[in-house]
């Protein structure tokens, strides 16, 4: 079967025959399409110079083109800086606003900022600085010091930007496709499970915010991938009175409002997870599946007593996340299985949930230590506590000794017990000693927070 990748690029329908679906979108734009306004700054999805916009369902979403595989773009509408024009070929108002605010110096990061600004303008955002920083967190500028860019964004927030054009009907893919015999894009769960069983060595691809680095930075694209995003069951988000269920391949962008509604402490936490570009592609299933010890979501999900629905042709099983991470980068997922969804029980009466992330930079950084805590207090007594940490061990893990100490003897005992739970490593994000001290101090912060929920305890709030 010879399927061609097909998508819309700057309002033009593009067929891409004979090219590896593992080619990054950035490489294709620059080297095959000659569109060199989009830049490579880092090839790891962290600087935003490669930012382009996906136009889907009437929205515009900024993404990092350096870590997106061409196969993922099939059926999508892509806009690059070259596809931005105002009336009669003049610069687009977003571009004009950036230029007029003196928001460019060397200009290399600028097209990426422009595309993030376009997505921001299209999202009906207000000009508050919090929203602006959220929109810019995935774009680095080394020259301007950002002040003029932020100023331009305050003007851009008020622009009436034309909505994205409707996707051409021809882009719709009712049936599964395979590109180059290597990029499987199933449309149904059954097809996905068949593929998974038939190709146990294929990598599962959700948002490619991690996997994409194989193609971009490492230049060793995967041999075979199974793309999960088009399977409806995996993208579903549902809630009941008892629990919240997020499909493993739902993006953070799609899941955030549901998660924040159920667990308000996640509002700030999720705004620090990657960047806008990363959250537009990245998925919770991916964050769990890679089993990184420093993923942001696993500690949260462990504390929230999440369970996973794993599915294969053999059937469906549910396992607590507690039992999923085995050791460094190893999980309980069988070779023919996939994660279908993640469920979290809602907070019961008397329960509260809190979480912290400590990193060198507030935005778009990987946590040195992440902590998440669900605590049940009744009549002034702590009845139950789940304390989970990332960055403290080879896998995200609960601090079981601290939990036990907390229930038995209170916070001072729990703080003292953290050292029994973890033997963290020294690396560029922090020393083992620092990590242990921070984990203990985060429990102190939790104690203060529980004592007085109104109290300002983070520099971010000043």
């Amino acid at each position, binding site marked *: 079967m010879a399927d061609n990748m097909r998508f819309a690029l700057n309002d033009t329908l593009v067929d891409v025959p004979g090219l590896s679906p593992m080619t990054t979108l950035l490489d294709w734009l620059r080297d095959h399409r000659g569109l060199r306004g989009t830049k490579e700054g880092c090839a790891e999805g962290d600087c935003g110079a490669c930012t382009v916009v996906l136009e889907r369902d009437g929205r515009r979403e900024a993404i990092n083109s350096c870590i997106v595989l061409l196969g993922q773009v099939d059926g999508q509408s892509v806009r690059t800086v070259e596809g931005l024009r105002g009336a009669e070929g003049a610069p687009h108002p977003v571009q004009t606003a950036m230029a007029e605010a003196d928001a460019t110096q060397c200009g290399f990061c*600028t097209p990426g900022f422009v595309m993030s600004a376009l997505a921001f303008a299209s999202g009906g955002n207000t000009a508050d600085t919090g929203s602006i920083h959220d929109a810019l967190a995935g774009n680095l500028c080394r020259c301007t010091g950002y002040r003029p860019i*932020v100023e331009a964004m305050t003007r851009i927030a008020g622009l009436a930007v034309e909505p994205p054009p409707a996707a051409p009907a021809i882009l719709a893919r009712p049936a599964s496709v395979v590109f180059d015999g290597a990029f499987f894009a199933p449309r149904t769960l059954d097809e996905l499970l068949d593929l998974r069983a038939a190709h146990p060595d294929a990598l599962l691809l959700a948002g490619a915010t991690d996997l994409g680095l194989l193609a971009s930075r490492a230049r060793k694209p995967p041999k075979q991938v199974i793309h999960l995003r088009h399977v409806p069951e995996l993208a579903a988000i549902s809630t009941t009175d008892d629990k919240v269920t997020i499909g493993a391949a739902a993006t953070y962008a799609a899941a955030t409002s549901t998660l924040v509604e159920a667990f308000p402490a996640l509002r700030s936490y999720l705004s620090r997870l990657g960047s806008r570009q990363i959250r537009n592609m990245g998925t919770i299933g991916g964050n769990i599946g890679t089993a990184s010890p420093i993923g942001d979501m696993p500690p949260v999900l462990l504390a929230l007593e999440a369970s996973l629905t794993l599915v294969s042709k053999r059937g469906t099983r549910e396992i607590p996340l507690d039992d999923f991470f085995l050791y460094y980068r190893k999980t309980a997922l069988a070779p023919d299985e996939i994660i279908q969804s993640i469920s979290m029980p809602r907070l019961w009466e008397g329960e509260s949930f809190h979480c912290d992330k400590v990193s060198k930079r507030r935005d778009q950084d990987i946590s040195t230590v992440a902590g998440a805590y669900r605590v049940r207090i009744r009549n002034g007594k702590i009845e139950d506590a789940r304390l989970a940490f990332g960055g403290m061990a080879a896998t995200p893990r609960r601090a079981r000794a601290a939990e036990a100490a907390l229930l038995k003897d209170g916070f001072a005992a729990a703080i003292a017990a953290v050292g029994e739970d973890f033997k963290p490593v020294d690396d560029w994000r922090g020393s083992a000693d620092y990590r242990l001290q921070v984990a203990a101090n985060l429990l102190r912060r939790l104690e203060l927070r529980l004592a007085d929920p109104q109290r300002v305890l983070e520099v971010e709030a000043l």
Partner: protein
Amino acid sequence: MARLGRLSPTGRGQPVAPAGTAPRRSAAGARGRGAVSAQVHKARRHDSALKHVTGQALYIDDMPEPPDTLHGALVLSTIACGKLVKVDIAVASKMPGVVAVLGPTDIPGKNDVAAIGQNEPLFAVDRIEFAGQTLAMVVAETLDAARAAVEKVVVEIEAEEPILDIATALERKAYVQAPSTVLRGDPDAALASAPHRLEAEFSVGGQEHFYLEGQIAFALPGEDGDITVHSSTQHPTEVQHICARLLGCDFNRVTAVVRRLGGGFGGKESNASWVAAAAAVAANHTGRPVKLRLPREVDMVATGKRHGFDYRYTVGFDDEGRVRALDAVLAADAGWSLDLTPGVVARALTHTDNAYWIPHFRAVGYACRTNKQSNTAFRGFGGPQGVVIMEDALDRIALHLGRDPVEVRALNFYAEGRDETPYGQKVDENHLARCWAEVKKGGEIERRRAEIDAFNAANPVLKRGLGLFPLKFGISFNLPHMNQAGALVHVYTDGSIRLNHGGTEMGQGLFIKVAQIVAEVFKVDIDRIRPSATSTAEVPNTSPTAASTGTDLNGWAAWEAANTIRQRMVAYAAEHFGVAEADIEFADGTVRIAKPGSNQVLSFAELAKLCWLGRVSLSSTGYYKTPKIHWDPVAMRGRPFFYFSFGAAMAEVAIDTLTGESRVLRADLVQDCGESLNPAIDLGQIEGAFVQGQGWLTCEELWWDARGRLRTTGPSTYKIPGSRDVPPVFNVTLLDNAPSREATIFRSKAVGEPPLMLATAVWTALKDAIGAVGGRNAAVRLDAPATPERVLAAVERARQGREQSVTRNG
């Protein structure tokens, strides 16, 4: 006062206003005409701004490639120190698409890319000196083919124990150059007799440039072995020289061309040269165009960074806090080779005094040799590493005496009668007191100090701190011979003007500033001026665009070139119309001939055409050399700087004593730009430099593992500031009514580097906040970068009263 770029807590900014509309004094005395200026001292947008935002600005990797273009990829050492036994390219050479694998024996000339020293090979021979050293280069039909082949090169190294820190290098006396000293008076005796004496140690880390456009060069072979190299370099002439050195050819065979850089910050001064040379050698070897673009990881591992420094000092002072003597040791981490380290150490030593009169002074600079990347120029070039010492000392002095550190600083400022630097240059223009007063007033210091103290008393977890910093920064290259520049201006017969000079455009707005100067000379609209790519074929023997001197040097050179043409035009017009030269007036794109009876007006283009018909040359070079400067690098005395730039900063921070996280809440800056040529551009330089300095001192941490391999090799691991890290209240003021006393171009001053140091106020504020943990009576050691981990460690020391002990006299 022109207050620019206010950012309120809501983020709603005010538009940038021109510095003023009043008539301005023109260029220095007789050299310029005293007319009302139309083009300079005006806020003007970067000339490429619209191209930047539309993606039409071409960087080297965006240029169309000839179909036979090859791509290079580098083979790097992963061992920090050892003997190079073998580089086996047999398998790599046979990989698909590979055209050549080049090593030391493929270099026709000399295998040495040193900027000022020697024995800095492009491809390592025998010795491995750091993890990241270039061993060979694969040249292939595609970039992926080249990168794939790199992994098939088999390297054998007999590893040896590397030197990975300054302390070890000092202990083993491993230096890249002999120690140098700036000395005045008798510091030993003055320290011994001082009423008080303190000793302290601390260190600052290096800094990755993180220009968004990585290092890149594109070399195109021509006939007879000629080669054109498009390089993202701040130093085209050095690219030319080093390419020629490696190719073994005359300089006139190599043309280096630079239209723009996607950021430089010093990182593309010497480091761009070896990248260009590698591309040139490969192009010469294959006879085909070769592009060499370093992927971010390779760029960060292979190229030098800002020098980290260790410090130890003793300071003596009186009961009021007046400094009597300083004895300081500054030990720089030079990395494995000399590179530009002599200049960095010299600038650190000549900025150790910062804004302060220190009667007895000794600063000894060690350039320590370690098995790490060879550290290089980075905005400030040792200045930032010099000025931090006295800031640390004065805080300690104030705390020791129970005095206000802000007042103690002011007490020690250079002033009348206390106005000679330790290296012998007089501080004869001094805006310190003015900058200090303005920053204190604008920042409402008294109200905020009280607020912060009250906050700290009420909050055991979060602490706020305030820090002030005065700046004096010397402008000129420390080496006098580098302070020269050339320009080439052509006026065409349609009145359009082509401008070329030796400076490179790396985003700092040099091209627009120099274009403004030329437009001012001809009194034409700036749109008539076409700045062209910097090229060694147009203006030869140039200095790097560095040391903040880009506009000072190239602006004057361009003025000279333009003025030469203008004078020819005036002379011809006078002759042609039979009037005196004084009757020829240029204004608003026209030329007025004030002849009694007929007040004739020509367009500038018409006069240009007329001059051509009259056989008048409308092309001229221009040349400038900075006057008055001299420097004895052995005695470390002289007048290295044409003038000083001044400034002041006040920063407020908050820290979390549980995690060590910190945040800059507000910054107020006052920066002396002389009479700014372009306040919009200068504002951008000030803000950008401050945030870059803030990054250096807070979140930007380079981390090498125990084997000496750099592990922070991309933005995922090396964190430069993001938009949210910029102070939410950020007030920047250009010091008003401060035309340069020296004859700088239109009385403006350099702005590229000085404001970076204003971020020192952030570091001081962090120490203030940490000190609040111990009740604000303990001096705090805080090494930079002040990452959460370092802040928390300092908090713990402050809490436990484990701060460094101090020596007290009698």
